[in-house]
């Protein structure tokens, strides 16, 4: 952030390009609290009735709070699984003499590059077979698995920047290998953990295809699926309601971004302390 006064042409340029996006977001918000006469772009009436779904629900749809809870569970459990597994697997791949490590790493990267949609039929069949179809657990497992390759790679990158000598010092100081990992190494990769956590949470929060295909029933529905079902319903089509639910859906995302934007940069900085 040094010398940002000299960057102002860049900032102005980027700002200009972003204006359409900004206008869309502003309109999204404005439309959720106003009514506009047909054919006009300018609203003429302030109203909160588009937000009524929060208290009264929507006719023929599940309870919005139940759906939100499902989404939160889906996103946070996915995040937890991804963090737990990546932080350990990344360490093992960075430090231990795992046999065939190179092939394993290359394989993991392949998985990441693999478009997950192409797997969906196979996954669908498997979940049905093991009885996890239409359950949150099932879709959480699938989502975490698909997030893991990236997570493992990112965490391995962060572990690679922690000097060996710190671990040797810990061992000589009498700490077990696990203690060294937990008290000495993990704190050094904390920026990676935070960034990966936020990243996975957002990925889980915005995931649509997997829950739509693997857990469509109303008691395990998540917000993205709920939103899609609103738009698919031609019976009572209410565009402002749709926008309000959409707004409701992205508020947590925006809040997370505002709080963690610096930390998210760390993923690309590969462990540079910021």
């Amino acid at each position, binding site marked *: 952030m040094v010398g940002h006064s000299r960057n102002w042409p860049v900032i102005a340029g980027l700002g200009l390009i972003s204006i359409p996006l900004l206008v869309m977001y502003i309109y999204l918000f404005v439309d959720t609290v106003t009514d506009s006469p047909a054919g006009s772009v300018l609203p003429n009436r302030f109203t909160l009735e588009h937000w009524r779904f929060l208290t009264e629900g929507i006719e023929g749809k599940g309870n919005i709070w139940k759906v939100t809870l499902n989404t939160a569970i889906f996103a946070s459990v996915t995040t937890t699984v991804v963090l737990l597994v990546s932080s350990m697997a990344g360490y093992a791949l960075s430090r231990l003499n795992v046999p065939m490590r190179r092939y394993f790493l290359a394989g993991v990267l392949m998985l990441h590059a693999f478009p997950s949609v192409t797997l969906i039929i196979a996954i669908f069949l498997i979940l049905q077979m093991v009885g996890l179809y239409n359950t949150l657990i099932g879709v959480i497992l699938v989502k975490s698995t698909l997030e893991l390759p990236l997570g493992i790679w990112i965490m391995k990158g962060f572990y690679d920047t922690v000097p060996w*000598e710190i671990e040797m010092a810990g061992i000589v100081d*009498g700490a077990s290998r696990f203690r060294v990992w937990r008290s000495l190494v993990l704190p050094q990769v904390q920026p990676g953990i935070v960034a990966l956590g936020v990243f996975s949470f957002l990925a889980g929060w915005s995931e649509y295809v997997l829950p739509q295909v693997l857990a469509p029933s109303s008691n395990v529905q998540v917000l993205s699926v709920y939103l899609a079902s609103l738009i698919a319903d031609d019976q009572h089509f209410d565009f402002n309601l749709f926008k309000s639910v959409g707004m409701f859906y992205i508020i947590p995302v925006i809040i997370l971004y505002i709080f963690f934007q610096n930390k998210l940069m760390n993923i690309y900085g590969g462990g540079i302390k910021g």
Partner: protein
Amino acid sequence: MEIVVKGFTKHFGDTAVIENMNLTVKDGEMLALLGPSGCGKSTTLFAICGIHKMDAGQVLFGDRDVTHVPAQQRNVGMVFQSYALYPHMTVFQNIAFPLTVRRESKVDIKRKVMEIADLVYIGELLERRPAQLSGGQQQRVSLARALIRRPGVLMLDEPLANLDARLRLEMRSELRRIQQETGIAAILVTHDQVEAMSICDRIAIMDQGKILQIATPAEMYQRPVNSFVAGFLGDPPISFLDGVVRQGILVLQGDADDTIPLPEHISGQPDGKVLRLGVRPEHYQPHFPTKVKGAVVFVEMQGREILFDVKLSNGDLLRSVQAASSQFKLGDTVEWGVDPAQILVFDDHGTRL
């Protein structure tokens, strides 16, 4: 506690890094492990403290065979070249870590940390983090952390290499003071012969995974086992002259037929034998008897002393260190002498005769 390493061998993949090494560190002494970069000093250290497994051999701490004891239970203190402080902990927490791991009581930990902090003079830094310390201070913290649980042996892996020249001098004597005050046996790994000579009781000099000689600094300087050791110790370094024996006299290589009489203790060498003489700069002086003629080709004023390089007619160099009052100049032709009693003579394998 006496540390004994017997028959230590270590391979990395196919390359043998250490081959059948034997080493003893006596109780309370400071031993230097001296050698060029990459000769296996750190590897030896890591094997003694248990980080590396040995491919063959034994390590004894006193009468206890620790060859198969994990590093955590060997109770060695180690100072790394990069200090390896834990960046997210304060100085206090860093020093206390070995005790925290052992679950000692808070009161005990506090008392011991204060004690050791006083010993290494960092009492007022305890709340800082490593990033807020200078190199010398980090070094002291690292030392305190290594000493706090009263280790059986203290290992120092190039502890001074990352310090600037002035600080290095200061920390050098500090290391010695602290080691002597605690009376803990210490191994100092270094590639700097001045460091090894100035603060260690004995030096083990290594090359390519082998220990060539273990001796006190004075002994090693005066009676090196071979030309490698002779060349490694001493600054400015020793000069070598190659030649062939003819009737008890060494004829230097080249066509110039310069000769140097062999010293008395090297008598009875057969004609035609190839020998190498080592002459230290302090033993090539204007007043010594065995005269060697040459031209001054390089003069370096070092304040208290002047260093001269003298080129002989066959192209070989001899160095001389003289008091700063010396009046010789670049280009002078000089005929200075070598002290015959101090000439080191090596055979064609480099072994000293």
